[in-house]
């Protein structure tokens, strides 16, 4: 089964934990198999280390944990341990009849998460799931931390923006709301963190997302549908709903990218140039304040992943795109319409992010964010700047070429809408981009969103729970963002990709998103917002996010969007 960050897709974790046991002793192999089966785990036995490695490589996400003996004839157990740790990053438990301290120490040094002494009792095996769980939590936690930070930032930003006018006024309101949301969110997040206990979330790991994108490209973006994708992906544990929501996000993302591209080309003052460099993506928001905020947010965004290498993204798309978060900054320089940049940036950030590493949060939830950027083939490459193509030609759409037609159209429409505010959006996007983890963005973006009121709707993406599950995430409510720039309703039209992108970029400015699942926040930026860079949030095209869109598209959101500014 392909598994993203979460190895076990089962909802009744730890039942069904997929264990690979490697031991040259046939007697022990049989005993362990029986013991593990009694623990309701799914067991695969192997008496040769090499065979075990090939099994693991074959099905990269096919196992949750590996238990291996130390002394094996064909390969040293420690060596196997190293391989598994490096290639698959799975928790490995060592076992041996020899319990000498030096051996145990060696095991730990090589990365074993536990060392069991033979004879092994069943109670020792019952608890091995904790190692799997721990790993997951750590990944998510990293992300969340970022998010919290971001949200705080956003909140601050929000207030600063208030002076901008009615936007801000609205923002104030939303800010407050956001604060609340934020609090809630945090709670939720935390709670959701132990998603395993709550329910199994689908973590769109890089691999999984790649598969998804591949399937989408194969089918043809315009003909794509969750069922088809699901069939092509051939991931047994993935549900249609999972794919549907992910697709939605992806569409949003793409459309946003496209929009960015368009914007980029437009001379709007996006100060992408400004954006650059600030760590995260200084989106060159016309307002310095915003900018700062954006920057901050961008930074955050960038941080969400740790070090979003948005830089990678820069290469291509940066023109004008502030590198998403990081990437946006570079693009910002170009002052290209944000959309354009952002998309690129967005894409890149993701890409880079992905490449960077699986950010905990993202990996789990959105490891795809990067992958999103990957969407357009060219963009999708992890390391590359996804949007690059978009910039110039609206290739933004993740798909390179053909399939993206649809998206392009959408983004175009969106882009047009947002062209005015494009800057903001882009800025926002830029900001957002850097943060593939939406969660981080969200916070920041929320505030910026409010201020920016970009026409782009961004969805605050809550990385923590970003897992793209089927559930609709509440784009806006969750994050501080709450700002919902009114998007030219086209937003809704925007492909999921775009929104997704946006979210990514803007970290989910989805300000006023309808009560979307906390998991996913996408800030909807109203593209129409002529506001100067609201910041990154603008860029987010929240509507696009699949998860979010469900809700976002809900009447409430749309209304807001229609009305123009809306502060989430």
């Amino acid at each position, binding site marked *: 089964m392909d598994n993203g960050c979460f190895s076990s897709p089962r909802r009744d974790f730890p039942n069904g934990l997929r264990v690979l046991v490697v031991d*040259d*002793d*046939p*007697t*022990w192999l*049989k*005993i362990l198999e*029986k*013991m593990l089966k*009694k623990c309701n785990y799914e067991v695969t036995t192997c008496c040769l280390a090499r065979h075990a490695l090939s099994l693991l490589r074959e099905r990269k996400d096919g196992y949750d944990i590996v238990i291996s*003996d130390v*002394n094996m004839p064909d390969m040293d157990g420690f060596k196997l341990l190293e391989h598994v740790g490096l290639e698959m990053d799975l928790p490995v438990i060592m076992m*041996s*009849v*020899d319990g000498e301290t030096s051996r145990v120490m060696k095991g730990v040094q090589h990365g074993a998460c536990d060392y069991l002494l*033979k*004879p092994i*009792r*069943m109670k020792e095996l019952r608890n091995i799931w904790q190692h799997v769980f721990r790993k997951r939590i750590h990944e998510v936690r990293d992300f969340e931390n970022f998010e919290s930070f971001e949200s705080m930032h956003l909140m601050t930003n929000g207030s600063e923006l208030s002076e901008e006018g009615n936007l801000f006024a609205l923002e104030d309101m939303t800010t407050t709301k956001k604060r609340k949301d934020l609090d809630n969110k945090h709670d939720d997040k935390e709670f959701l963190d132990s998603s395993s206990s709550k329910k199994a979330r689908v973590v769109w790991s890089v691999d999984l997302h790649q598969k998804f994108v591949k399937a989408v490209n194969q089918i043809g973006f315009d003909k794509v549908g969750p069922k088809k994708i699901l069939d092509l992906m051939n991931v047994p544990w993935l549900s249609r709903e999972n794919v549907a929501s992910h697709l939605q996000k992806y569409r949003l993302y793409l459309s946003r990218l496209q929009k960015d591209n368009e914007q980029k080309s437009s001379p709007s003052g996006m100060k992408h140039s400004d954006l650059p460099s600030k760590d995260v993506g200084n989106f060159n928001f016309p307002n310095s304040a915003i900018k700062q905020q954006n920057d901050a947010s961008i930074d955050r965004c960038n941080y969400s992943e740790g070090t979003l290498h948005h830089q990678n993204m820069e290469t291509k798309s940066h023109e004008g795109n502030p590198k998403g978060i990081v990437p946006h900054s570079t693009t910002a320089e170009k002052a290209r319409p944000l959309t354009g940049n952002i998309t690129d940036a967005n894409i890149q950030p993701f890409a880079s992010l992905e490449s960077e590493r699986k950010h905990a949060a993202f990996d789990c939830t959105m490891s795809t964010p990067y992958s999103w950027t990957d969407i357009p083939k060219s963009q999708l490459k992890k390391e590359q700047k996804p949007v690059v193509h978009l910039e110039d030609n609206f290739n933004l759409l993740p798909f390179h070429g053909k399939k993206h037609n649809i998206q392009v159209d959408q983004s175009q429409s969106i882009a047009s809408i947002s062209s005015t505010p494009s800057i903001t959006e882009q800025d926002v996007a830029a900001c957002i981009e850097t943060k593939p983890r939406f969660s981080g963005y969200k916070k920041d973006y929320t505030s910026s969103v409010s201020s920016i009121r970009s026409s782009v709707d961004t969805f605050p993406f809550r990385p923590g729970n970003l897992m793209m599950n089927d559930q609709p995430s509440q784009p806006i409510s969750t994050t501080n963002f709450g700002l919902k720039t009114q998007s030219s309703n086209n937003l809704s039209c925007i492909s999921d990709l775009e929104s997704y992108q946006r979210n990514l970029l803007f970290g989910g400015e989805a300000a006023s998103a309808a009560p979307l699942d906390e998991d996913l926040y996408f800030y909807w930026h109203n593209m129409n917002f002529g506001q100067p860079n609201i910041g990154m949030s603008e860029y987010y095209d929240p509507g696009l996010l699949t998860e979010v869109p469900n809700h976002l598209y809900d009447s409430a959101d749309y209304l807001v969007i229609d009305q123009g500014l809306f502060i989430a």
Partner: protein
Amino acid sequence: MEKNQSRMQLVAMKQSFFDQGLLDEQFIQLEELQDDVNPNFVEEIVILYYGDSLRLISSIEQALKERNLLDFNKLDTLMHQFTGSSSSIGAKKVKAECNLFREYCRAGNIEGCMKSFQQCKKEYASLRKKLEAYFQLARQVGSSEAACRSK
């Protein structure tokens, strides 16, 4: 009546294994794993153990034939495996002898190795005999159920 007697006999036999230090709680663990899915689990495991042991014993014997040019590392490795195998069914005494052998190995004590290896073989043979009798009786008594209950 007969059955009860046999059952009691079975119980007593098993108890003696523990009392004599032939088996340890690992054996009980195996019995606990036995269920409807694997009604003869314990016996299956023990049979696997026999096979593994024979292979290892003959390898060690072969290695020991080198007399004065013993490859202690190899011997240690082989014995290590035998120890692991014995631990799987809880063969306590056999395991103890194996550990002794390994110590001699590490010390480079050829005589010690030879002697302790003989002990190993002896203990193994003795245990095997007793277990075979045990399982035979268990089958007579009527199944794994009896074997389990005789705990």
